[in-house]
C-alpha cells in the first residue's frame, strides 16, 4: 500500500528538484512531469518506481501520491506557494529535509539529478513539450493541447491587447490556414476506441463550426475577438472532456488507479453530455453570427464530385 502524505522518499525527491538551481521556483505540474520522467527511467527493480503511479489528466501526467506529498510539504512549511498572476502560483523550497539513505533512494536521486540537469527551468515549456510529444498515450494530445489550444490562447491574448486580426500572427502559427490545418490533424488522430465515439462525434462537430468561424474571419477580416474567444472557450472544454476520457483507458493510467475507474467513468459520462450541449450551443452561435445564407458554397470540381459521390454511395449501400 503506498503511503499518502508521509512518504519520506517522495518528499526527499521533490525537495531535491528545487535544489538544482538557487532559489528555484516551479509550477506544481512541472514537479509531476519531472517525477513522471523519473518513473519512466527508473529500473524495474527500484522500489521507488512503484511509489509514483500516474494517470494522464488536464495538465499532463498527474500523480495523486505526489500531489498529496506536495500538500503535506506545504502544510509543514517545507514548500511555499508564491502567487505570480491570477490563479497561478509557483512553489519554492523553504527548508531542506533529511534525506533517506536507502540504495533505492540514492539511485533514484542520481537519475533525478540527471533529468533535472537537462531541464531548462526558465523555459519549462520545452520540457513540457517533450513530455507530451514523446510520452502522451495518444497523438491527439500534443497536437491539440500544445499546438492548437496554445495558438488560440495566444491569439485571444493578442487581440485583447489591441492587435486586431488573426493575420498578424507571427512565430510558429503565422496564419489562419495553419491553425485550421492543425485542427484537422487533431481530428485524424482521435482515439478509435468505443469509449471515445461520442466525444469524437462532438469534436468533429466543433471542427466544422470552427472551420466556419475561420472562413468568416478570412472573409470579413474584421475584429474577431468575439469569435476567437468563443472558439477558445469551447476548445478548453474540449480538452477537459478529453482528459476525463483518456485517463479511463489502460494506456492512460497506471494500475494503482484501477479502483477509481467507476467514478471516472461516471464523471466522463456526465462531461460528455455537457460537452455535447456546449458544442451544440457553439454551433448555433456560429450560425447565428454567420447566417446560413452566407455560408460559402463553391461549385464542386470533378475531384470533389468524385469524393462526395463515393461517400454517398458507400453510405447508402
Amino acid at each position, binding site marked *: 500500500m503506498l503511503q499518502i502524505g508521509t512518504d519520506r522518499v517522495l518528499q526527499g525527491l521533490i525537495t531535491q528538484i528545487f535544489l538544482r538551481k538557487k532559489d528555484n521556483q516551479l509550477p506544481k505540474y512541472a514537479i509531476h512531469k519531472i517525477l513522471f520522467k523519473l518513473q519512466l527511467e527508473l529500473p524495474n527493480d527500484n522500489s521507488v518506481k512503484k511509489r509514483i503511479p500516474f494517470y494522464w489528466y488536464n495538465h499532463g501526467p498527474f500523480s495523486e501520491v505526489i500531489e498529496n506529498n506536495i500538500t503535506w510539504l506545504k502544510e509543514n512549511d517545507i514548500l511555499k506557494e508564491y502567487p505570480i498572476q491570477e490563479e497561478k502560483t509557483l512553489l519554492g523550497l523553504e527548508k531542506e529535509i533529511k534525506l533517506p539513505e536507502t540504495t533505492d533512494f540514492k539511485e533514484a536521486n542520481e537519475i533525478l539529478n540527471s533529468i533535472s540537469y537537462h531541464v531548462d527551468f526558465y523555459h519549462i515549456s520545452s520540457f513540457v513539450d517533450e513530455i507530451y510529444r514523446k510520452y502522451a498515450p495518444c497523438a491527439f494530445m500534443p497536437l491539440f493541447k500544445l499546438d492548437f489550444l496554445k495558438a488560440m490562447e495566444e491569439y485571444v491574448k493578442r487581440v485583447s491587447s489591441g492587435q486586431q486580426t488573426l493575420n498578424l500572427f507571427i512565430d510558429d502559427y503565422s496564419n489562419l490556414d495553419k491553425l485550421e490545418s492543425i485542427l*484537422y*490533424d487533431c*481530428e*485524424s*488522430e*482521435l482515439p*478509435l476506441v468505443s469509449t471515445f465515439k461520442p466525444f*469524437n*462525434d462532438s469534436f*468533429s*462537430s466543433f*471542427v*466544422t463550426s470552427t*472551420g*466556419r468561424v475561420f*472562413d468568416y474571419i478570412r472573409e470579413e477580416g474584421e475584429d474577431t475577438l468575439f469569435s476567437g474567444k468563443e472558439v477558445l472557450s469551447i476548445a478548453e472544454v474540449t480538452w477537459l472532456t478529453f482528459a476525463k476520457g483518456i485517463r479511463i483507458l489502460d494506456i492512460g493510467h497506471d494500475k494503482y488507479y484501477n479502483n477509481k475507474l467507476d467514478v471516472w467513468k461516471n464523471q466522463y459520462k456526465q462531461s460528455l453530455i455537457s460537452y455535447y450541449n456546449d458544442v451544440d450551443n457553439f454551433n448555433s452561435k456560429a*450560425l447565428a453570427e454567420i447566417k*446560413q*445564407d452566407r*455560408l*460559402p*458554397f*463553391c461549385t*464542386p*470540381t470533378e*475531384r*470533389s*464530385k*468524385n*469524393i*462526395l*459521390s*463515393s*461517400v*454517398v*454511395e*458507400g*453510405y*447508402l*449501400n
Partner: protein
Amino acid sequence: MFRDHFLDANILVGSRIDWDKQHNLATKYMAVEGLKKHTSKRVYNESKGVFERTRRLILSYLKKFYEEFSVSSNPLRIDQIIKAFTKKFADKFEEKEQNILNSFVERNFGDIRNIALGGEKELGDFKKVVIDTFKNALNSIDRDCVPDSKALIYRYDGCPLTYYTKEYIKLSEVINYENDILVLLDSYFIKNKHIINNICFVTTDYNHILKNKSEIEKVLNGISLMCPD
C-alpha cells in the same frame, strides 16, 4: 400521397450529390416541386454526423497511409500496397464505414497513388480538396435545413429526446435500431403538434423501416411510409 413530407437522414445525405439526378433517388426526389419538406434536429444532426465522421475517417486514412508509405514502400508495387493498407486500415471499423472507405479508395485511387508518388505536397493538396468537399456538403445541409417555414426543408428543433412510451415499445418490437425508432417518433410528434395533416415519411432504408411499413403505419396513425422511387 400527402403534400407534407418528413425526410429521413438518407434523403438529406443522398441529395448532397445534386449533380447525379439520373442515378440518385434522393436527388431526384428533392427536385420534385410542390411538396412541403420537414425534418427534425435529430435527422439534421445525423446527416451532418455522416459527413463529419467520414471526413475524420478519410483524413485519418490519408495521414496513416502517408506515414506508412513514406517510410517503407516499393514504388513498383504501389497498387498492391494501397489495397493491402486499405484492407488493414478498414478492418478497425464497422461495416458501414468500411463500405464508405472502400468506395472512396476505389473512386479516388489515382489521387491516392499520386500521394504515394508525390509526397507531402500531393498529400496536402488532396487533403485540402477533401476538406473543402466536406465543407461544401455540410454548408449545403445548413443552408437547406433551417428552423423556418420558408426554408427548403423546415427543421424542427423542439422534438423531445425521448417520448411516446406506448408507441416506442410497439415500434421496438419490429425495429432493432433505437435511432430509427426515435426518428419515426420525431415525425409523429411533428405531425401531431405542428402539421396536423397526415404526412409521408420519406426514406430509402428498406432493411429497418420500409420492410416494416404496415406495422409502423398501424402504430403511428397519420404517418405513411414512402420510398422516393
